[in-house]
């Protein structure tokens, strides 16, 4: 069973279309990165999946049921962007309150507080919490009831590097145990190693979806080869004509950078290897950020 399936979803607000013809699905045990500029429709998509609003057109199924239905909502964990809590309650009281609402086992409260590193601060009022601590409490809240679908909107806001690494490790563990995870983030390099697939929204349309390899194939962005060899100019002359390059940059006397089409990558590497005694060769695939800029740029957004 898929965690959610959106088929040809349209949603408008005050006669302004917000989402147009969105089709997207997430399988169990997968991490989906949902990307887009502010106002591209990420939050609206999440709200539709959570059942907070109904689409104007299209079919929408979540965990095999209706979005927003109590037995579906109980199996979803959600961390909103800039999560906020009741300032007068302590961390433990907050989590206990939400655990009651979700019918989650009460023993999860201390366990989750421990897991997100708030065990010591759990007796303090949320009013005194730092941004990062509130974020971690928000995460604990999302994990109540061991959800089958986890939706995290900017989960690393306010987290220090160690806490961020902890979070990603945790997400990987959850994914491996079968949880479907949606990750919205603007920190593209941060999430790149952890997502199984990406969906890029621009202007209310889904402009790209798939795993990174297939997105790279679709985009056809150049691969950058960085070669270090003594006498870079000489090397360039020798390469000329042999390498189907798109663009060449000489950085200094012994570094050259070649941008080649993905299909020409191996030919270029072979030529480089044959042309000189290389000290070093780096191959830079287009990053998630490059792909994001490419797809939003095609849609008219740009980076």
């Amino acid at each position, binding site marked *: 069973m898929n965690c959610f399936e959106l088929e040809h979803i349209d949603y408008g607000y005050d006669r302004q279309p917000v989402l147009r013809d969105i089709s997207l699905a997430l399988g169990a045990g997968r991490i989906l990165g949902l990307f887009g500029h502010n106002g591209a429709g990420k939050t609206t998509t999440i709200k539709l999946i959570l059942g907070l609003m109904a689409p104007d057109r299209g079919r929408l199924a979540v965990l095999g049921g209706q979005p927003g239905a109590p037995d579906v909502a109980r199996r979803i964990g959600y961390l*909103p962007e800039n999560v906020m809590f009741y300032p007068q309650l302590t961390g433990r009281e907050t989590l206990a309150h939400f655990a009651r609402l979700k019918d989650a086992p009460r023993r999860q409260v201390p366990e989750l507080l421990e897991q997100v590193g708030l065990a010591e601060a759990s007796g303090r009022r949320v009013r005194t919490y730092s941004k990062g601590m509130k974020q971690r409490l928000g995460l604990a809240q999302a994990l109540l009831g061991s959800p089958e679908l986890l939706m995290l909107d900017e989960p690393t806001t306010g987290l220090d590097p160690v806490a961020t690494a902890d979070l990603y490790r945790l997400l990987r563990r959850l994914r491996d145990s079968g949880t479907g995870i949606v990750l919205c983030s603007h920190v593209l390099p941060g999430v790149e190693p952890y997502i199984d697939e990406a969906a890029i929204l621009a202007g209310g349309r889904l402009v790209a979806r798939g795993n990174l390899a297939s997105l790279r194939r679709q985009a056809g962005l150049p691969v950058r080869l960085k070669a270090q060899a003594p006498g870079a100019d000489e090397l360039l002359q020798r390469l000329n004509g042999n390498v189907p390059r798109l663009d060449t940059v000489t950085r200094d006397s012994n570094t050259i950078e070649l941008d080649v089409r993905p299909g020409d990558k191996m030919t270029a590497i072979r030529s480089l290897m044959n042309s000189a005694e290389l000290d070093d060769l780096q191959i830079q695939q287009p990053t998630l950020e490059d792909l994001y800029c490419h797809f939003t740029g095609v849609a008219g957004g740009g980076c």
Partner: protein
Amino acid sequence: MSSIWSIARKELSDSLRNRWLLAISLVFATLAMGIAWFGAAASGSIGYGNTPATIASLASLGIFLIPLIALLLAYDAIVGEDEGGTLLLLLTYPLTRGQLLLGKFLGHGLTLALATALGFGLAGLAIALLVDGVAVAPLLEALLRFILSSVLLGWGFVALAYLASVRVSEKPVAAGIALGVWFLFVLVFDLVLLGILVASKGAFNPDLLPWLLLLNPTDIYRLLNIVAFSDGGELTGVLSLGADLPFGPWGLWLALAVWTVVPFTAAWALFLKRRL
């Protein structure tokens, strides 16, 4: 059902934590005892006068205080959660909007009921124990009626506060509307009604006029607490119209309950339309 109770429980523990419950109870108890012992001071005597006069004075005071306290307690119920950023999160939980509103009502309603019962109950106990020769049975009966009608009046204004709270998107606006509601029902309504009576010089259908009192929950409340002691002879001002109502106390109770149910249902319907 359990999620309704979870919401109610949080509201109740909030009002314990921020001492609202304690403060309201104390205010009620102090005022009730003050009125019981010094209410007759204007006529030159100090000490407990009689039960009907005490209850009538209490009701006059209750009309000002109870709606105000109820409105203050409840005006930010929904708009406060929205501004605090917790409404969105709550509604992703297995909790419908109706259950959330009902939970809030249960919490606020219980807070108000507990404070009223505690405050006025303690005052009643003090009167029964300390005043020599007071007839305990009629005092208890009147006090019970007074407490029940006060609670019901408070619930009505809690529901009216929700009506504002589900509709607006900023807390100060909700507070402003709540004050307006208080002003309208507690101060303006009777004046307007009196003005109409005088200005119309009997042109209105006299059978219709008493029914107009039912449009104001505070008038129903006052009628309930005063009519019970007499045939309406002590009713003054617009309330004298109440003596002409073709039904007894049960009709008044029912009317007061309607003043809780109708605004609450309307708030519910509006809340369903609120956009997140």
